[in-house]
C-alpha cells in the first residue's frame, strides 16, 4: 500500500484525476480522446455528405436550381464570421498557454461566443426565416406548387432543400452545443481553474470548435456554390 500513499502524496496540478500516473499522461489521454470523438463526428456528418454526393451525381440539375435559391452573400459572410471565431478561439487557448491573465482568456472566449452567436443570428433571420416565407422548406407547402421554371427538376430541388436544411440544421445544432461549452469554459476560467500548466479543457474544446468551423468550410461551397454562379449556369 506504500505506493498508493506515495501516489496520493504527489503534488499534482489542479484538475488532476486519480486514475492517471502524471499530468502528461492525462493531457495526452484527453487530447487523444477528443480526436477520437472528432473522428466519430467526421463519420456522423460523413453519412450525410455521402448521401449528398450520391444524389448530387444523380440529380445535378435539380441541385443547381436549389443552390441558386440560396444567397451567396449570407453564406460567405457566415464563413468569414466562423473563421474569425476560430482565430479568437485559438488566441484564447494561446493566452492560457502563455499564462496570460484570466481577463485575457475570458475576453477571447466571449469574443468567440459573440461571433458564434452572430453566425446563428444570420442563419435564422437572413436565411431560414425568409426561406420559410418563400415556401422552400421541404414538406407539404414546398413551393406551393413546383415553380414552372423548375420543370421536371422540381422533385430534385426539394431533395436539395432537404439536404440544405438537414445539413445546416445539424451544423447549427453543433454550434449551439459549442456555445454551451464556451459558457462553461468562461465560468471555469473565472474560477481560476486553468493555468499554463493545465488548460486541457480549453484545448480540447478548441478542437471541437475548429471542427465545427471545418464542417462549414465544406458546407459553404457544396450548398451555395455548386454548379457555379456565373450567368447561364
Amino acid at each position, binding site marked *: *500500500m506504500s*505506493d*498508493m500513499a506515495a501516489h496520493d502524496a504527489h503534488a499534482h496540478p489542479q484538475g488532476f*484525476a*486519480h*486514475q*492517471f500516473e502524471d499530468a502528461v*499522461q492525462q493531457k*495526452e*489521454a484527453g487530447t*487523444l*480522446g477528443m480526436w*477520437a*470523438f472528432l*473522428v*466519430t*463526428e467526421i*463519420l*456522423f*456528418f*460523413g*453519412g*450525410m455528405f*455521402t*448521401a449528398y454526393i*450520391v*444524389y448530387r451525381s*444523380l*440529380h445535378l440539375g*435539380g441541385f443547381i436550381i436549389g443552390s441558386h435559391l440560396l444567397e451567396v452573400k449570407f453564406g460567405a459572410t457566415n464563413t468569414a464570421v466562423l473563421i474569425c471565431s476560430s482565430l479568437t478561439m485559438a488566441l484564447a487557448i494561446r493566452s492560457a498557454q502563455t499564462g496570460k491573465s484570466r481577463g485575457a482568456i475570458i475576453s477571447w472566449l466571449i469574443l468567440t461566443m459573440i461571433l458564434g452567436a452572430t453566425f446563428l443570428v444570420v442563419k435564422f433571420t437572413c436565411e431560414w426565416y425568409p426561406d420559410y416565407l418563400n415556401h422552400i422548406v*421541404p*414538406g*407539404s407547402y*414546398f413551393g406551393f406548387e413546383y415553380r414552372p421554371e423548375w420543370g421536371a427538376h422540381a*422533385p*430534385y430541388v*426539394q*431533395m436539395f432543400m*432537404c*439536404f440544405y436544411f*438537414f445539413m445546416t440544421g*445539424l451544423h447549427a445544432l453543433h454550434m449551439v452545443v459549442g456555445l454551451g461549452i464556451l459558457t462553461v469554459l468562461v465560468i471555469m476560467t473565472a474560477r481560476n481553474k486553468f493555468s499554463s500548466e493545465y488548460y486541457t479543457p480549453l484545448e480540447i474544446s478548441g478542437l471541437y470548435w475548429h471542427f465545427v468551423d471545418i464542417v462549414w468550410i465544406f458546407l459553404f461551397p457544396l450548398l451555395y456554390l455548386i454548379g457555379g454562379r456565373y450567368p447561364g449556369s
Partner: protein
Amino acid sequence: MSTATADIHHDPVESNVNYLNASYGIKSWLFTVDHKRIGLMYLAVITFMFTIGGVAATLMRLNLVEPQGALVEPETYNKLFSTHGIIMVFFFLVPSIPATLGNFLIPLMIGARDVAFPKLNLLSWYLFVTGCGFAIFAILSGGVDTGWTFYPPYSSLYSHTPVVIMALGIFIAGFSSILTGLNFVVTIHKMRAPGMTWFRLPLFIWALYATSLIFILGTPVIAITLFLLGLERIFHVGIFDPAIGGDPLLFQHLFWFYSHPAVYIMILPSMGVVSELITAFSRKKIFGYSFIAFSSLAIAVISFIVWGHHMFVTGQSVYAGLVFSVLSFIVAIPSAIKVFNWTATLYKGSISYQAPMLYALGFIGLFTIGGLTGLFLASLATDVHLNGTYFVVAHFHYIMVGGALMGYLGGIHFWWPKITGRMYPDMWARIAAAIVFIGFNLTFFPQFVVGYLGMPRRYAVYPAEFQVLNVMSSAGASVLAVGYAIPLVYLAWSMRYGPPAGRNPWGAKGLEWTTLSPPPTENFDVPPLVTEDAYNYAHAGATHV
C-alpha cells in the same frame, strides 16, 4: 505475466476491502465511477434486455409450430421478430462483452487503476439505460414492426408503429457505444502498466481494441442514418423518398456500413475471450500470437468494405456486387487463421474441461460452421437463392448466438470468481454448457435446411411442407431456453454461498489473476510491472524480477 512482487501475497483467505464492499447503498452504485461496478451495472441491464429479447424469440418459435400461426396474428408476430432483433442486436449483443467484461477487465488486464475517463464511462451507462428506456417505451406503446433493419420506405412512410421512439432509443444507445469505444481506445493507448508493451497485451485486449475501432468508426453512421430516417418519418419528406428522387437502397448502404461491422463488434470480443480460455485451460502459450492479434485488426478493417453482400438481390449494380463478393471472401481468411491457431494451441497442451473451456470449444465448433456457411452467402450465385431465407437466419445465429453468446457465457464463467470472489458449482455449469450446445444445434441446424428449401424469413404464416423442420427448431429452442436459465440460478446462488475463489482459481496467466478476488477499488494492491509475454505458461514456476 507474473509481476515483480506478486509472490509476496500468498494468503488464500483475503477478506479485505474490495470494490464490492468498499461502500454500500444504491447511491454508491448509481454514482460510482469504478469501472468494475459500471461493468456489473451493464451486466444487470443487458441481462434484463436479453430476457425481453428471449421472451420475444420464444413466442416467435411457439407461433411457428403451426403453419397458420399457433399463437398470434401476423401483425403481432412482426412486432415480435422486430423486438427480438432490435433488442438482441442493439441492446444485448453489441454491448454484451465490451460493456460488461471489457469494462471490468481492460484496466485489470493492462495494469491500470481505472479506464482513462471514468466519468464518461458512467455517462455511457446512463446513455445506454436511457436508450433501453426508449426501446422499452416503444415496445410498451405497441412495438415496432419494421424488423431490426428499418428499411424505408416501409419504416419511413408505411409502418404505423412507434418507429421514431425506437430509432431514438438506438440512437442514444449508439452514443453509449461510441463513448465506450473511445474510452477503451484511449485507455489501451495511454494507461498500460510499465512493461506492458503492445505485444505483451492479452489477446482479449487486442480484440477489444479492434472492437472499439468499429465502435468509433461505424456507430456514428448508424446514428446519422436513423436520424435521417426519423426526419423523413416526422416531416413525410426526406432523402430516401423515391417520390423526390431518393433511393431506398442508399439507406441500406448507410445502414450496413455500420451493421455489417456490428456483426464483428459482437464476434471479435468473443474471439478474444476464447483466446484467453484456450490458453488457460490447456496451459499453453497461444499459437501464433501476432497472427491472432493482427487478424483481429484485419477483421475490424475489412469488415467495413464488405457490406454490399447484404444487397446482392436488391437491385444493387452487378459490378458493385462483384466487388463486394470478392471483398467478402477476403474477410473469411483472418477468421480461418484464428480457428487454426486456436486448434494448434491445444497441441501438446494440458487440457482440462472445466465449464469455461466447454464454452470455448463450443464456440470454435459453432463459429466454424457459422463461418463456413458464410461462404454460401458471399458466393453471388448461391446468395441469390439463399438471401432472405432461413439459411441466412441460421447462418447469423451460428455466428451471433453460437459464437458471440457462447464466448460471452464462457467469459462470464471464467471471470466470475474474479468478479464475485466466489466459485460456482462446476458440474452444473458443465451441464448447462452441454444443454446450450445441444439446444442451439437443434434450434438452428434445421433452419439451414428449411432455408435451402426456400422458406423466406420473417413469415408469420408459411406453407405446410416446412412444418416439420419448424417444429424441430421450436423444440430445440425450448432446450436452449433451459440451458440459459440454469446459469442464472447457480450464478446467483454462488454470489452468496459459493466457496471463496482466491486470487487465481484456474491457475491462469494475466495481470487480473495477480490481484485479489474481488479486486480492491484501485485494482492492484501492488502496482504491476510486466516483465514477460502473455500466456507464459511454460515458465509458470519461474519468478521474474
